[in-house]
């Protein structure tokens, strides 16, 4: 289950604290810490101009209860692969996909009668930004999904009633995963857990990140690199695969610098959208506004550039540390590629 905030509200660790208190209020006893690590793997392309037939990304998952194992989830193909943990080394050596964004699920594990409950937050490994709140409920005596459905639904009802008393701005939501699509049987395994993480991630991504409440300083530079062909509005995510350099470092930065490729190959493509069209950045981008942009305008412009098929690189500006909050590109867009 994941926490679905009410529209217009933001996530906070207070919600997690309240949720933990709720588990304890219905008899949950702390049974250690809980930690899972989910990684987005993205392809490494030799030539951005050549069309590709590989996925934009896939997920890797390390579960605390299976320390020697690692799971890959390839959602478009409905595949969940179980492997020894050493598969991560193999992926690294192949240099075909790179671990781009890592999300940690951290929290507490509770014993609650025959149930095991885990509540925790979802945070990127390279920052403290709260991306979501997750909850896992397991009914220990049964491993049949069908047979345990009713008892879990009853638990869920009690849980919703308990948490609703806190008047929190949102609710926990359970999205049913279609295990059969992945060829999984009724007997619950860690493969099922991996699929649930993938489903939950899709929901967190769809819900989107918390929007910054302060302006973000944006510095725009131009740089001669390859330009992706114009993709059109329907596939504007594709160029996101170029969002690579310095992503991990960027999330630790107070500020994000966008280096925009132009290269002049496409001439001056028309940028979809109206009022924010602005002047197309030319070499040196001297005529592109530098300085602080309002967040909404910032993201709108960025998206428009992506629609136009530009490749982007993100690097932190180490020389200009600002005190304003930062929303990094991988938080707001990189994961959206899923």
């Amino acid at each position, binding site marked *: 289950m994941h926490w679905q905030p009410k529209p217009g509200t933001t996530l906070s660790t207070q919600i997690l604290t309240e949720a933990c208190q709720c588990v304890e209020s219905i008899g949950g006893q702390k049974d250690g810490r809980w930690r899972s690590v989910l990684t987005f793997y993205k*392809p*490494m*392309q*030799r*030539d951005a101009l*050549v069309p*590709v*037939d*590989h*996925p934009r990304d*896939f997920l890797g998952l390390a579960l605390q209860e299976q320390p020697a194992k690692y799971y*890959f989830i*390839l959602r*478009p*193909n409905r*595949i*969940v*692969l*179980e*492997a*020894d*943990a*050493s*598969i991560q*080394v*193999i992926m690294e*050596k*192949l*240099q*075909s*996909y790179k671990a781009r964004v890592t999300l940690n699920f951290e929290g507490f594990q509770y014993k609650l009668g025959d149930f095991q409950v885990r509540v925790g937050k979802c945070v990127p490994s390279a920052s403290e930004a709260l991306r979501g709140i997750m909850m896992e409920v397991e009914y220990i005596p049964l491993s049949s999904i069908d047979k345990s459905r009713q008892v879990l639904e009853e638990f869920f009802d009690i849980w919703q009633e308990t948490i609703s008393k806190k008047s929190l701005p949102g609710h926990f939501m359970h999205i049913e995963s279609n295990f059969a699509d992945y*060829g999984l049987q009724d007997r619950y395994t860690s*493969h099922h857990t991996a699929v649930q993480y993938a489903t939950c991630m899709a929901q967190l991504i769809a819900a989107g990140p918390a929007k910054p409440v302060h302006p973000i300083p944006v510095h725009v530079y131009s740089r001669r690199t390859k330009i992706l062909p114009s993709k059109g509005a329907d596939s504007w995510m594709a160029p996101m695969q170029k969002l690579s350099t310095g992503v991990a470092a960027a999330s630790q930065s107070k500020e994000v610098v966008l280096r925009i490729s132009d290269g002049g190959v496409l001439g001056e493509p028309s940028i979809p959208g109206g009022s924010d069209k602005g002047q197309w950045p030319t070499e040196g981008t001297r005529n592109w506004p530098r300085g602080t942009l309002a967040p909404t305008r910032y993201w709108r412009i960025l998206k428009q550039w992506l629609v136009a098929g530009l490749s982007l690189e993100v690097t932190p500006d180490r020389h200009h540390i600002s005190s304003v909050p930062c929303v990094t590109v991988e938080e707001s867009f990189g994961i959206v590629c899923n």
Partner: protein
Amino acid sequence: MECVVQGIIETQHVNALEILLHGLCGVPKEQVRVHELCLKSGPNLGVVPSEVRLLCDLAQPTPSWTVRHVGGAMRGSGADQISVLVRTVVESKVSNNVLRFFYGLGYKLDHEILKVGFAFTFHRGAQIVITVTSAHKMPKLHAIEEALPITPNIHMVEITASATAENYNEVVAAVSAFCEYLAPLLHLSKPGVSAGIVATATAAAASLMSNSASKPL
């Protein structure tokens, strides 16, 4: 990492080799029946083209799958002076949908073979595995039941031993020492540096076979 040497032996002498190995190793042989699929990255995928091997162990009642990545060999003057190749190898046991997974990632099947034979695993200065196999090709995709030997008269012999950066010298010494016991029957060398068949093999094999006839295993 692993230390590895390879060689070839005429099929007619494989029985003699088995007798010799049985005597040297003192352990029962294991059947080898491995379907090996070599996948290569599709066009434009990866910083450099990459290759991965999927091994399906068919000798077990339930086939099990392993992903194997063979890295570059150790280089330098030190490496040149030893007769054993030292290279990085990473393996991972995986679920049986691994082929579909790698296809999904954009990898393509380059070739597949079926290796049939036997192996001995024993400890002699290091944990050593010696496999004697015949490579089979498949007339149709994945048709392992119809597989035919590629070189009916030749078997491949491979000795591997896992090692670390700290102990590979000792492991190399152990592998080299073991190779000497096999010298009358076959010559083992670094992969890719074929030493061919050994001239003394026929005589050595005949001697082994006559000895074994009087001393049943």
